[in-house]
């Protein structure tokens, strides 16, 4: 008890401490309730109802001003579950053709998190115009329901699905991270819809309504002073030529592969075809969209959603010889007149890589025209093993660095959603595969003819051809030639990029060979009347089956207007499928029509060929 007397004073300390804390709290309350008015303003915001006005998404035009993508109105039925009391439920079910159970299920869903019975949520997505018409008459009887107007994409022609991409509902995770998008909003998911989302999407408008305690709208806040109108998305001017794109898709129909065309003087993509493709109108709308998407997604044989032009990597095959020829000339190792022997392969006498019969050893120009494998095996060894470098590893690195200046192994920096670098194998890689010092230029000789681990995406192949056509430079390939209005463009697309070889003479030698390719060389059957075109065939071996047919070409020879890279998967020789298709595309683009009967015959054969559905084409022998 005596201790209690000593400690008695502590009651004042404890009591005082309690009072002090409470005093601090009262001060704080005084501050937030009476002094600081930011909370009051926030509270008012909470009591406002923001009604969203969705903007019209930007239109997309092709390079000639033709409409590629536009919008059509669509109507979502929204519901505020709390306000549905006294609603004519049976009628709602009847109009929407749903059961009572379904109705209750949707209402329940609208009540659960993240939705709330007090807030609007979608009841029926994108009603058909007929349903909407039927509904509108009765809407006044459907308490708690209202219609939200939106737009969906429409495509006048069922083309360029891979390039344009599609629009869909934003994913939950993205919506949570974003300050602009809310769940249920639409966003570009692939293609240019995705890469130019910020331009196309426009800006949502809001109308601020004041609500009372019962969440009923009393009126407009400040007579609409702070309401904002939706701002439509900007128009995009796409660089593709709609007619060319459509023609190309028809030619590529029934074949797996890709075709990319570029205007070399600007880097604009004239067409970007990935085959098989699909009708972009399939991926529009609510229920329809998800059903069609599932169908396309699970077509694992054709993989129509797979963008081959931008994401499939192929060995470039013989088309790669152009780069070898340029590097070797640049290093002073070969000249126009250099001849290397060829007798069915390298080393001569049926070694590997094999070569097809083309009448013995050729000079540089004809080696390009007839695509001699032996020639480029020699060339590759000349480059890698040149005296200048003490060790062949340095030679190899030199070759690799030079190749990369032409684009392979680097991301080009396009405005497309995919920008794969492809692959030019490194020294490190080979050290791992063969062991350090256990490989020589001979071991990797097939790189010289564009085989082995060398991989390019079709867009890169087109870009390599562009460099040749431009005699040494390229613009970063891009699919949009104007944002908002034609010609308004990011400046990175107006900047020239130079390849490692700059001397015009070297390019002319190679180009001469490419012209001969059409005139007595491997693609002579695809010669285009009245047009001097330059091309290079390729036949890429691959682990997936028959060889890929490849072709790179540009025309006309002087001031080229169009560059094309074409790949037809597992179709055999490049000159049989890829070259004719490419030549038809060039003719169509430069002349507008195909007229001569011989050419029309080729066109017919190309259009009819269907590798996918089993109609195997007649394989001719050369």
């Amino acid at each position, binding site marked *: 008890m005596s*201790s*209690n007397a*000593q*400690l*008695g004073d*502590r*009651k004042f300390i*404890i*009591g005082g401490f*309690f*009072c002090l*804390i*409470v005093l*601090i*709290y*009262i001060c*704080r*309350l*005084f501050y*937030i*309730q*009476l002094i*600081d008015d*930011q*909370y*009051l303003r*926030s*509270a*008012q915001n*909470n*009591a406002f109802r923001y009604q969203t006005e969705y903007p019209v998404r930007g239109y997309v035009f092709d390079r000639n001003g033709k409409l590629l993508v536009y919008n059509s109105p669509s109507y979502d039925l929204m519901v505020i579950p709390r306000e549905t*009391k006294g609603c004519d439920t049976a009628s709602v079910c009847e109009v929407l053709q749903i059961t009572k159970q379904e109705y209750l299920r949707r209402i329940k869903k609208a009540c659960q998190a993240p939705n*709330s019975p*007090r807030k609007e949520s979608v009841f029926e997505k994108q009603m058909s115009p007929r349903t909407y018409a039927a509904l509108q008459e009765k809407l006044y009887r459907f308490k708690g329901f209202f219609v939200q107007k939106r737009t969906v994409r429409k495509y006048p022609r069922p083309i360029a699905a891979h390039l344009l991409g599609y629009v869909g509902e934003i994913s939950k995770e993205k919506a*949570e991270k974003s300050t602009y998008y809310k769940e249920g909003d639409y966003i570009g998911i692939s293609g240019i819809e995705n890469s130019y989302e910020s331009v196309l999407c426009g800006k949502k408008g809001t109308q601020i309504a004041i609500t009372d*305690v*019962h*969440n009923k709208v009393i009126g407009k806040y400040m007579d609409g002073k702070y309401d904002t109108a939706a701002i439509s998305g900007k128009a995009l001017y796409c660089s593709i030529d709609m007619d060319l794109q459509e023609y190309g898709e028809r030619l590529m129909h029934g074949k797996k592969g890709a075709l990319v065309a570029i205007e070399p003087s600007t880097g604009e993509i004239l067409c970007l075809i990935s085959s098989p493709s699909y009708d972009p109108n399939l991926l529009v709308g609510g229920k329809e969209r998800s059903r069609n998407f599932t169908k396309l997604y699970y077509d694992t044989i054709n993989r129509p959603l797979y963008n081959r032009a931008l994401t499939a990597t192929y060995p470039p095959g013989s088309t790669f010889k152009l780069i070898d020829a340029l590097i070797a000339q640049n290093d002073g190792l070969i000249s126009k007149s250099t001849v290397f022997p060829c007798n069915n392969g390298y080393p001569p006498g049926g070694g590997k890589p094999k070569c097809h019969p083309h009448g013995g050893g050729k000079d540089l120009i004809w080696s390009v025209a007839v695509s001699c494998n032996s020639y480029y095996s020699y060339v590759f060894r000349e480059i890698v093993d040149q005296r200048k470098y003490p060790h062949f590893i340095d030679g190899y690195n030199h070759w690799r660095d030079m190749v990369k200046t032409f684009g392979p192994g680097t991301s080009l920096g396009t405005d497309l959603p995919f920008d794969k670098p492809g692959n030019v194998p490194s020294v490190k890689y080979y050290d791992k595969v063969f062991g350090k010092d256990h490989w020589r230029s001979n071991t990797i000789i097939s790189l010289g003819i564009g085989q082995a681990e060398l991989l390019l995406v079709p867009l890169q192949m087109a870009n390599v051809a562009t460099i040749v056509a431009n005699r040494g430079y390229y613009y970063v390939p891009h699919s949009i030639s104007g944002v908002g209005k034609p010609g308004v463009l990011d400046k990175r697309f107006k900047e020239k990029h130079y390849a490692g070889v700059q001397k015009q003479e070297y390019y002319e030698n190679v180009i001469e060979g490419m012209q001969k390719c059409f005139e007595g060389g491997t693609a002579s059957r695809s010669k285009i009347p009245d047009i001097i075109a330059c091309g290079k065939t390729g036949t890429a071996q691959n682990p997936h089956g028959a060889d890929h047919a490849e072709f790179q070409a540009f025309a006309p020879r002087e001031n080229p207007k169009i560059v094309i890279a074409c790949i037809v998967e597992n179709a055999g020789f490049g000159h049989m499928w890829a070259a004719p298709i490419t030549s038809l595309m060039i003719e169509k683009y430069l002349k507008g029509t195909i007229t001569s009967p011989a050419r029309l015959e080729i066109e017919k054969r190309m259009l009819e060929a269907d590798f996918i559905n089993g109609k195997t084409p007649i394989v001719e022998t050369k």
Partner: protein
Amino acid sequence: MARNDKDIFYGVDRVTLLVYILLVVMGWLNIYAAVFDEEHQNIFDTSQKYGKQLIWITGAAIIAFSILVIDANFYTAFAYFFYGFFIIANILVVFLGREVKGSRSWFRFGDFGIQPAEFMKFATNLALAKFLSNQNIVVNQQFRLKLKDLIKNYKNTFIALLFILVPLILIKKLQDETGLAIVFIAFIIVLYREGLSVGFLIFGLLAAVLFVVALVVTNLTGLLITLAVISSASFLFVKRNKKNLILIVLVYLSAAGVVLATNYVYNHLEPHQKVRIDVLLGRGNVNLKKEGYNVNQAKIAIGSGGFFGKGYLQGTQTKYDFVPEQDTDFIFCTVGEEWGFLGSTIVIFLELFLILRVIFLAERQRSDYSRIYGYGVAVVLFFHLAVNIGMTIGLMPVIGIPLPFFSYGGSSLWSFTILLFIFIKLDANRLLILR
């Protein structure tokens, strides 16, 4: 005396009783306001929370009467029994209880649930009072470093701390109910009242302050240097002898230890706890749509109340479910919004008045047991008050504990009622028995 034996209200402190009833009724009306919706306007509708709360209140009244009827000796005699019983109940609930929001701390009976951790408070208070009243834990306040003396002096303190720490750790570790567990820390103040050296409290308080400072100040080296300067400077104001030098060095070293440990402790908190601390201190990017949502909405609701409030049932923030948990842990938002500064102050003062009244009553007890128990009641109530209101006005991190007598919930109302009424009964008997 014979007449008074039959009157169960004999000796009952009317003031405490009145404040208690006032708080419970005000709480009920505010729960009605918090979950009000037009379709269920009947305040007696038991399908709604306010209807259920009425059932809880009725139950609480029955419990209160029962406590007053039972002989006061019962609570002292069975103190350890209660403690043991609820310790076991708190372990069993982990195996037999229903999982709610990831933790198993509820026994479910149909629509109603009971949380044994709530009842651990009064049981711990009973046991602690019993232990302390039988011991003399006044410690020698001299500065000694001999371990033997240390153990001898502090033996009873350690045992008393065990009484507090066992339920704390049990509830935290097994049931993962941080809010319910952390309340037991309040009992340290009881130990202080009963003689625990003030050094412990000051050290604890300083450590807490340093923890916060170390989290706010990012430049730890600078902080350590500042502390060193302050320590050295303080040497100028005390007697310059060896003892004080050692003391100051020790204080500095432990302060530095706290600062250095801060990051470690912070990094080992659970993510949601980190976020709550970040929200409180305004550290990093707090997203007001997500982790900062509760506190921000709570502040908006309270802050928009103004002086007189928006009027009963007129609060827009609480009505539209802007504030989560507004009927339980965030009930004070409804008060702040609808009753304004005036109402909030009245509620806080009522709670404070009740607490101070309990301290006053505790101090007039003749038995140590009753006094210690009374202090236990006061500190537990105060801890709830301080943390609950502190978090709604952004002065405390969000810890889910109820506002005494106010928040919705049977377990908490019953547990506070039991806690308080045992003391009222002890107080009523203060003149009859010397315990």
